[in-house]
């Protein structure tokens, strides 16, 4: 099995020194495969402009971009144009029930907590679990399918299972993969949540209005 030749890596990294190449490849591995975002101290490629440029090129060639999580930590996410094109072509790796469960957890753990000012704006992880009862009883999802969906979402890192403790009920919170969302993807998700959780709110009307305007402008073009 040939594992060492990769024309894509070779073409992007060709002009780098061995040391720079090592740093860029390690940073690529850390950003792409870590469960959690990585501290910038570990990402030596970010400290040198040439290496950083090649790292971003390498990510872009593989449909990804660098995402800064906070002042210190980084991860990688889908390139917005690539994600938009795949979605427009109907690409959807999650089933309807899986998306419904994910949306429920985002509503209970993020949207409600944020509207009560228990979470800061633009935060997509949350310490407030969505209970199994919230997912099963309050929704119209079939129980067996919903449980299977939750277990697959946990395996994919989109949800994290919170175990029962004496003082609190167990359940699900958004998983570390949510930190990979780009600023544009977070803005889109925020709008979708408003449309889902408060369809009659003036904010939802404003979002629909703006989307209609953009859509009709694109149609004229």
């Amino acid at each position, binding site marked *: 099995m040939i594992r060492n030749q990769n024309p894509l890596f070779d073409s992007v990294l060709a002009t780098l020194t061995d040391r720079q190449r090592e740093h860029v490849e390690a940073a690529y*591995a*850390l950003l792409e495969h*870590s*469960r959690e975002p990585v501290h910038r101290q570990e990402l030596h490629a970010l400290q040198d402009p040439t290496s950083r440029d090649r790292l971003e090129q390498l990510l872009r060639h*593989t449909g990804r971009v660098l995402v800064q999580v906070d002042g210190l930590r980084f991860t990688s996410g889908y390139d917005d144009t690539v994600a938009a094109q*795949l979605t427009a072509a109907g690409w959807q790796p999650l089933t309807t029930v899986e998306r419904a469960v994910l949306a429920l957890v985002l509503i209970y753990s993020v949207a409600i907590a944020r509207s009560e000012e228990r979470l800061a704006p633009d935060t997509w992880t949350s310490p407030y679990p969505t209970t199994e009862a919230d997912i099963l009883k309050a929704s119209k999802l079939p129980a067996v399918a919903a449980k299977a969906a939750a277990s697959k979402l946990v395996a994919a890192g989109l949800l994290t299972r919170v175990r029962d403790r004496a003082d609190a009920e167990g359940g699900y919170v958004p998983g570390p993969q949510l930190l990979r969302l780009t600023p544009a993807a977070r803005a889109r998700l925020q709008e979708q949540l408003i449309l889902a959780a408060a369809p009659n709110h003036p904010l939802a009307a404003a979002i629909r209005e703006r989307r209609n305007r953009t859509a009709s402008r694109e149609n004229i073009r």
Partner: protein
Amino acid sequence: MNEHDTALWWAKIRSGGPQQAPAGSPSPAGMRRLVEPDAQSVWFLPNLPPSAAPEVLAEYRQEPATLQDSAGTLRVFAACLRCCWPDPGTDLWPGQPADLTDVDQVLQQLTPGRDRASRRKLLSASLRRLEASRWVLQTADRVRLGPRVTGWGSLELSTLRELWRMIPDPQPKSDPGGGEVP
């Protein structure tokens, strides 16, 4: 294939696991091409240099996004490996399709104390998780190894061969010289 189409393929595989395409499809840059045994289709999966692959994470003490052994998924995978790879001297992929009853037999020995119903539940839930990331592929009552297993390097394969010997046999053969002990 241009750069943009290549990026689309990488994103598809990142989100949906290794992808199957008709046999004549061009390979996206940097992808490994795995031909199905019937030669009708191919699988694409990233061919990362070892210095950019998940094994780098250990050096930096970072946790990879691995499949959690929630409720025994890895035991089910071990049982599949034992049944679909009858001879560890051969290549792991494509291996052989195995009957679910054989996998269940091995699982029974790996999970003593579980009753039949709870073992069935464990088997079907775990296979679903394993299939989602293409570690295994399922057809009706059979299971085979998925393209994902070709991502293991030679070092990991030698460890796997050691482990293979510790997994019980699906159909323990009766002693060939039974009863003729001198």
